[in-house]
């Protein structure tokens, strides 16, 4: 303590506040650390002989190689992600389940063409099953056929031999 009092304070140099308290603590930690670890600052790692003397040539050769093109579909995950994306695109953009087309909006010709091409699946019996008696009545009232149309139809769709039997 006496010594501290005798130290001349008549100088222009200053130190940060609590510097000497912190200095003692830092010094103590450093001494304890070195007592345990020792003075040599080596981690113990080594390298193969001549590793560094050959390294620059090895890297230089690698930089001369053309850049590899990495396939987007390198992993199975990418295939899975691409498949799911395609399905979502199909559903939400193309929307095959959309029912915006109503029956009323269909042209008669379109319906006729459909029935004609699919008539093997829809017989007169099927129609009778699908429609009520009232609907069938209305249908027969609405269809006004000329005689000539009936004859033409019979000529093209019926076998004369069948008519003879009936």
């Amino acid at each position, binding site marked *: 303590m006496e010594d501290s009092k005798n130290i001349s304070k008549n100088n222009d140099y200053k130190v940060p506040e609590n510097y000497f308290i912190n200095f003692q603590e*830092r010094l103590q*930690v*450093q001494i*304890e*650390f070195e007592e*345990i*670890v*020792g003075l040599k*600052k*080596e*981690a*113990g*790692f*080594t*390298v*193969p002989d001549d*590793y*560094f003397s050959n*390294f*620059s*040539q*090895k*890297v*230089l050769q*690698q*930089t001369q190689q053309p850049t590899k093109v990495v396939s987007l579909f390198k992993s199975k995950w990418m295939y899975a992600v691409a498949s799911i994306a395609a399905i979502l695109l199909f559903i939400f953009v193309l929307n095959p389940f959309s029912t915006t087309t109503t029956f009323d909006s269909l042209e008669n010709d379109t319906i006729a063409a459909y029935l004609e091409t699919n008539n093997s699946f829809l017989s007169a019996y099927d129609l009778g099953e699908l429609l009520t008696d009232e609907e069938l009545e209305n249908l027969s009232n609405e269809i006004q056929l000329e005689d000539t149309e009936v004859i033409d139809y019979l000529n093209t769709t019926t076998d004369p031999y069948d008519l003879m039997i009936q």
Partner: protein
Amino acid sequence: MQTQIIESQLIDDLKKQPNHAAFTILVEKYQERLYWHIRQMVKNHEDTDDVLQNVFIKVHRSIHSFKGDSKLYTWLYRIATNEAITFLNKRAKQYHISSEALQDRLINSLESDLYFEGDEIQIQLQKAIQTLPEKQQTVFRMKYFQDITYEELSEITDTSVGALKSSYHIATKKITDYLKST
């Protein structure tokens, strides 16, 4: 000043094509410093070799975008640090383990490593460093093992010298406490 002139000349030469001679100078100048920096992080020689090659390949590809806002070694250290961290994260994901568990595994495999000649205290030191937060690990390794100055560290880590000194002191204290308890 002389060093800065040489470095700016090297950067100019690297940006020209072909730059084989300049690139070789760059690699030979920094390969050892960057190797030990990466090796401290990934531990194993083969992995360090892979990471170091990737670092220089990336440097070769992107040297034209280096604007000189920072010093060349600062830029190189940052690339090397990022590349090592990326490598470790990939490896942890590959093994389905945490980064901490990966470090434990890497340290435990040191004893059978052909290129590790450390003793028990050096393995314990690695384990102690592993317990520190990532930034303290980096500061401690670069200061203690590589003897990088605080000024250089400040540029590399973009942290003040005062904060780095404090970080190093705290790291040393924690390591000492860990070693005393084992």
